[in-house]
């Protein structure tokens, strides 16, 4: 596939502002009648243990570049019709969406496999860092989980 063709099929966004799942889904569906299934994963700031918010830091430029490479990899590996990765940065309170990945394919197996691949790889393979902000004022950088690195390496 040409890189121009890829550009039409891949959408990568890193932004502080919220996104809309309905809009993003509809956008992917415009890629044509070959789509039979669309898988998605939405990551959300989970509460508990006094967590108030996450502060998401990123490496501008490298971030978009890593996510685009990841999306291109998924596109080829799972013969996707298209895929979308949107990642928010900045301060996000409990309950707010952080990340959305969408993968559209002819069949459900490929769409769901690609969705899992994208989020598994994104966790440890794109330059984002999370600091947790707690009600008692503590601020703690999240350590990468060995488990997540093992999961990403499985693919």
């Amino acid at each position, binding site marked *: 596939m040409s890189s121009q063709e890829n550009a039409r099929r891949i959408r990568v966004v890193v932004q502080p502002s919220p996104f809309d799942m309905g809009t993003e889904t509809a956008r992917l569906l415009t890629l044509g009648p070959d789509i039979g299934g669309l898988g998605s994963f939405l990551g959300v700031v989970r509460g508990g243990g006094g967590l108030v918010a996450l502060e998401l830091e990123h490496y501008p430029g490298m971030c978009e570049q890593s996510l685009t490479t990841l999306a291109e990899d998924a596109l080829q590996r799972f013969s996707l019709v298209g895929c979308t990765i949107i990642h928010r940065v900045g301060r996000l309170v409990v309950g707010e969406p952080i990340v959305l990945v969408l993968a559209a394919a002819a069949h459900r197996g490929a769409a769901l496999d690609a969705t899992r691949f994208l989020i598994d790889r994104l*966790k440890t393979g794109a330059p984002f860092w999370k600091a947790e902000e707690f009600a008692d004022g503590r601020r703690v950088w999240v350590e990468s989980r060995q488990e997540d690195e093992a999961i990403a390496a499985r693919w």
Partner: protein
Amino acid sequence: MSDSVTVLYFAGLREQFGRGSETVALSADVLTVKDFLTARRQADTTFEAVFSRFPRMRVAVNKVMGDLSTPVHNGDEIAFFPPMTGG
């Protein structure tokens, strides 16, 4: 003008250094990331102190993940950061 690189720090590393970026002169004998780290440790003791707290530190050169053997050239952007935790 002498050779130099832009060095970026992210997350915990940025906070420990108290800065997100700096320009560092590049001596002629620095050919790789490993050489660069050795030179920095010798030139700046805080560098050694901070880096020892991040045993799993990662490096990217010109926005591409690298390692100790990655070549370093004049004008490069070298970024140091802890393991990534996106999603």
